[in-house]
């Protein structure tokens, strides 16, 4: 090939590619749809615990239950089979995955003692012991067995209980039984906090 032929070849190939670049020779257009991200994810049913409505959830996690795979939740959406929400969720529920994976979650019990502004880390045993001790002391001091008419009332008015809002009937029954057997009158759910 001599110099002139080389130039001719260059010119003709430039012209050809210029024509094809004008869209006259369309290639295959592949629809680049994002991969469906839940394929083979583990699906777990649960209830949203952030209000008393108790919407059904589908929680999707990585990890096939294999011994060596750590499960971690990466997507949560409404459970369409749940009679309460039939798949829908409020913004609080729709953003649940960020609650689950929040760096601000409580990982251990902490106590802020009266008169201080510092949170102190304690063990679960200490926490349960402390709660039981304080409840017992308060109940012993303020329990009302009979009212002014002499009727047995068994009231404990100085303490209230905040319970879970998303429980099945059985859980609600047990919670109620526990609280009422102590004489608690003020019972509410975390839905109202």
């Amino acid at each position, binding site marked *: 090939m001599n110099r002139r032929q080389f130039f001719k070849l260059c010119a003709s190939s430039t012209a050809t590619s210029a024509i094809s670049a004008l869209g006259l020779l369309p290639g295959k257009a592949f629809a680049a749809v994002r991969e469906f991200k839940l394929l083979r994810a583990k699906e777990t049913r649960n209830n949203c615990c952030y209000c008393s409505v108790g919407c059904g959830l589908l929680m999707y996690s990585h990890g096939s239950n294999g011994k060596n795979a750590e499960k971690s939740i990466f997507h949560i959406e409404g459970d369409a089979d749940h009679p309460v929400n039939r798949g829908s969720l409020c*913004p609080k529920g729709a953003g649940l995955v960020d609650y689950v994976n929040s760096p601000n979650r409580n990982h251990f019990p902490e106590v802020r003692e009266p008169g201080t502004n510092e949170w102190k880390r304690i063990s679960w045993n200490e926490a349960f012991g402390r709660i039981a001790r304080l409840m017992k002391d308060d109940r012993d001091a303020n329990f009302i067995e009979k009212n002014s008419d002499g009727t047995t009332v068994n009231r404990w008015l100085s303490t209230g209980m905040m319970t879970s809002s998303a429980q099945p009937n059985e859980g609600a029954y047990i919670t109620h039984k526990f609280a009422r057997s102590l004489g608690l009158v003020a019972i509410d759910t975390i839905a109202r906090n």
Partner: protein
Amino acid sequence: MSTQDIILSSGTSRLSPAAQVRKKLSKVAKLFDATKCNGCKACQVSCSEWNDLRAPIGEFTGSYQNPADLSSECWTLMKFNEVTDEKDKLLRWQFTHTACMHCDDPACLTACSTKDAIVQHANGIVDFDSDKCIGCGYCVTACPFDVPKLDSVDQKAYKCTMCSDRLQVGQEPSCVKSCTTGALKFGTREDMLFIADMRIKQLHEKGFAKAGLYNPKGVGGTGMMMILHDIDDPQSYGLPADPKTSLSIKLWQDVVKPLGAAGIIATVAVACLHRITVGRNIVEEDEPAAFDHSHPSKSDKE
């Protein structure tokens, strides 16, 4: 999804259609009923959750609307349009579920010069392919609804995909699934039009005489239709009254570019024809030399 699921593709001329559809998919649509929406933002949150978008926390702009506008990290936004009621002069919110309208005749796709960066699927969804996007921003300026946004990191355009990844496996878009009031519905366009028709009749009976369906014809109808309280005043919802592809874009893409291509082809064709019929212009060697080639090179064979 296969090639044949694409019915329109950017950067190609009408003379050479992008692909042919053999699978006759029915067109789908999202129906937003502004008269049912209570502005809870579940659609906005579930969009960000499903599409793994976490926009940086913005600043308070004096409205419940947050963030202030769509961005490459926020594909669905509840707009809290504040309107004063004519009768009682009280403040009223008009919520708009703001996301891509998935126009039948998309201005972004027409404006885009990059081949296949914007495609329309056979089900009517207008989708961006960020692998092919060159970040020119033509779609951003072309869109009459101001939907596509350039990302500040990779400089590519992003917008709502109508969860095309969910649609391909037979699920509804994430926003529609989460909607608690039933203000968002999803189905074929035919079904959505039917439902909208029934709902508008119901609204008329209830005294909303101006209620109507926002499905602008200027863009060939949209894949997201809206039932508004007052169809005569879409601007109060932050929607354009008569959206369409601008004339300059149409002229450029449909007239100037094909003409330019035709011009180049014609030039090449004429050149070839001239070469075949007339041949090369041979300069006679025996003409009187204007310049004395005293030492002609041996390698120059001509």
